[in-house]
């Protein structure tokens, strides 16, 4: 969002008398990604392999840089190669492939994922519609665009129905001052301010009550009629919504977005030292009346690239009160009351030049050792912030999914950094401009072991039912990649990784491959090789 806003605001706005001049452009890519995993699941006899597609089309209509219309259309997104829905009744005679995802569910061939318009007004820019949201390093809001990860692939992407206004307040002031007195030559400061509103829910399909009614039990709750029968929530069929489903404002979920960012480019620090400096804060206030939710998200970001040094950091916190999470606590008076207190951050620093970059990365996502108490403290980092190929991306995503089950999908990690802190030193070497060789090492430690997804060890600062783990750390992982680009558009990547997972992770009970050491403790060794072939345009 930041880069796009900056480009948009920087463009010259004066085209009032220009002739009608539409320009159409098309960006996007087609990519195929191949995956091979050895010994991922318990009992897996041979390497499991699959390949997936994605077509991403991003057409743009541009009227003189004053008014633009954007779309993002995804096709065959995540569709696994082959006919996996028995479109041919005899598999051996299969011909036409299906659109089956890796979850085994048939997907739609084409999805219009985003569509929005952007237009300039004298003091700023409006962006209205279903649009990507991205901030900083993408720990909270990550657009999932492009091939920007050191290892792995973007799979999700943050999209919001948003109305946003952005301006450069100091630029407006200096422009006015210089118009009044051109001799002043008041210097501009590259500061962007933005304000937006996101409509997250007009009417939730799952009806929220916040109290339970059971006609077979006597209750003195005056909210329960004699035949009312529901839990804290009740799943509904969309066909049973009445005509006024959109009228009720109590169940609406919306958020106010505030952004303030300084972006200094080409700053001159001395005769020979120049660089870029970015610093800003992204504040979101999310609300829903019927669940008494009032949550404040504060996300700070800073980045410097001065001479050959590079440093970047993002820290986020989510604080507030809600009754929306129906994992009821033991509090008889107010079992759904939850207080959010979530933290996450990533810090990167190192050296970079056109040929070589040496980066140390460290990150953290707070966990929750008691998900049913009144404190809600765990949330993974955004799943498109990739750290390696295996541990977070494949192992923890499966462990959290298998442990929580379909009933608590909102608590899955989906591949994001989960309830842990990690280090991830990595190196990138470019022997020639279109060839990169990358290597990385990741090691992760638990934050708050919960006994189900991260097992507890004697001495952990948490109360657990059992303390079966013996390792201090969760896992370590090594990754290698070679990335090559030629013919201007073809992008080929081959990546591989090995992860050693300790007895902190319940591999045995979540269906993953495990071995047992001489002391009777489980561990797992996992391999993957993955590849990407993409045509970018």
């Amino acid at each position, binding site marked *: 969002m930041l880069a796009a806003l900056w480009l948009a605001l920087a463009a010259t706005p004066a085209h009032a008398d220009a002739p009608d001049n539409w320009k159409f452009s098309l960006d996007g890519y087609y990519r195929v990604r191949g995956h091979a995993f050895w010994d991922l699941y318990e009992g897996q006899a041979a390497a499991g392999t699959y390949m997936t597609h994605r077509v991403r089309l991003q057409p743009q209509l541009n009227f003189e840089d004053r008014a633009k219309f954007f779309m993002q259309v995804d096709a065959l997104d995540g569709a696994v190669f082959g006919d996996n829905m028995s479109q041919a009744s005899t598999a051996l005679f299969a011909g036409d492939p299906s659109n089956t995802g890796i979850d085994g569910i048939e997907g739609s061939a084409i999805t219009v994922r985003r569509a929005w318009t952007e237009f300039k007004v004298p003091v700023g820019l409006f962006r209205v519609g279903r649009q990507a949201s991205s901030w900083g390093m993408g720990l909270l809001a990550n657009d999932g665009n492009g091939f920007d990860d050191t290892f792995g692939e973007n799979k999700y992407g943050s999209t919001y129905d948003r109305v946003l206004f952005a301006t450069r307040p100091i630029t407006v002031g200096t422009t006015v001052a210089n118009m009044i007195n051109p001799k002043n030559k008041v210097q501009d400061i590259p500061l962007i301010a933005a304000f937006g509103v996101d409509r997250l829910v007009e009417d939730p399909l799952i009806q929220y009550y916040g109290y339970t009614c059971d006609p077979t039990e006597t209750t003195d709750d005056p909210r329960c009629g004699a035949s009312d029968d529901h839990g804290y929530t009740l799943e509904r069929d969309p066909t049973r919504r009445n005509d006024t489903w959109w009228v009720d404002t109590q169940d609406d979920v919306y958020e106010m977005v505030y952004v303030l960012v300084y972006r200094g480019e080409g700053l001159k620090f001395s005769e020979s030292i120049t660089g870029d400096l970015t610093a800003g804060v992204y504040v979101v206030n999310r609300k829903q009346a019927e669940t008494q939710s009032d949550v404040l998200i504060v996300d700070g970001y800073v980045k410097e690239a001065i001479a050959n040094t590079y440093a970047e950091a993002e820290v986020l916190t989510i604080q507030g009160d809600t009754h929306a999470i129906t*994992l009821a606590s033991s509090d008889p008076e107010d079992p759904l009351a939850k207080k959010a207190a979530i*933290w996450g951050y990533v810090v990167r620093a190192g050296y970079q030049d056109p040929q070589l970059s040496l980066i140390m990365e460290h990150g*953290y996502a707070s966990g929750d050792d*008691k998900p049913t108490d009144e404190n809600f403290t765990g949330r993974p980092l955004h799943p498109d912030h990739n750290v390696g190929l295996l541990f977070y991306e494949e192992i923890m995503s499966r462990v959290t999914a*298998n442990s*929580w089950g379909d*009933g608590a999908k909102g608590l899955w990690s989906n591949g994001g950094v989960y309830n842990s802190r990690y280090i991830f030193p990595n190196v990138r070497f470019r022997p020639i401009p279109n060839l990169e060789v990358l290597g990385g090492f990741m090691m992760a430690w638990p934050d708050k072991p919960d006994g*189900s997804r991260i097992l507890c060890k004697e001495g952990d600062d948490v109360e657990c039912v059992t303390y079966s783990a013996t390792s201090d750390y969760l896992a370590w992982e090594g990754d290698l990649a070679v990335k090559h680009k030629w013919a201007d558009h073809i992008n080929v990547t081959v990546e591989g990784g090995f992860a050693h997972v300790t007895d902190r992770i319940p591999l045995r009970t979540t269906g993953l491959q495990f071995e047992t050491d001489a*002391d009777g403790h489980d561990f797992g060794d996992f391999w993957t090789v993955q590849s990407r072939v993409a045509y970018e345009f």
Partner: protein
Amino acid sequence: MSFRYSFLLLFAAACATSGSGDTDTSSSTVEPREFSDFVNTTEAPTGDLTCKDAALGTVDPAKQVDVTFNGEVHDFQLKDVVAEATVNFWFDDDVSATMSTTVQADTKGAFTVDLPACTPLAYESTTPVDWQQTVDTYEVHQIYGYEEDGSVDGEYVNSVSQQTSTLIPALIGLEWDPTTGIIAGTAYDCTETGIGNAQVFIHDEAGNAPPTGEIFYFNSSDLPTARDPEDAATARTNPDNGLWVAINVPVGVWIAEMYIWDGSTYVMLGSTQLEIKAGSVNISNIYTGHTDGIAYPPSCLVQ
């Protein structure tokens, strides 16, 4: 949690916690568990317990006849129908014996089977493993009442979804070892309402507690909770529901007993016997005044 460290301190802390080696190889010995590890409350029970020593009545043999059971398979938690489940019955109430009959529910979860009324029996509901939909669910000591017209309608058998079996240990903070089983039940009073402040003790026929198999109780919102040392209510049944669950109970035959504190001593209100099979859930309720888990409905008794 609080934001405790600066970036540099956090970085250093993450590196430091790696310790000096891969794993701690020290081993710990597991102490055998005793009655007092399970039963230790001194809170007075809630519920109608007046039938504890009352006569149970006599079963009328004339009512132990075959009836047509028109039932459905229901999800244990959501009460939705479970389509195309297989239901196996043991008319002798012994799941280790040869199965008496088997039936498959239709796409609406409905099935019909002839079974003996007023007779304790056991069933298992199951769906194919590949569906990843349910876990094998056992319920023993089931008794369907006598009907004049020879037809039992409106009853159902339970099926525990994989989702529920996954979520319960996850909420407690425990991993379920699939070589063991789960017991879930309700501590019932004389009106078949959940008893509050009761505790459950599991042991084998020799009186020994199983080496694994922690017992947890549900809160007033019907969610299982880990025991909180600062909240003694988490270690006994909640008056709102009387629900309890035992996770990681080894395979074998076990006796589950329900105790209350009467002000001076622990009193056993009732018990039941069950057999655990690996990877399954066994629904076993305990009724006040019944030491075998068998509670005949009034229609089965000599009037």
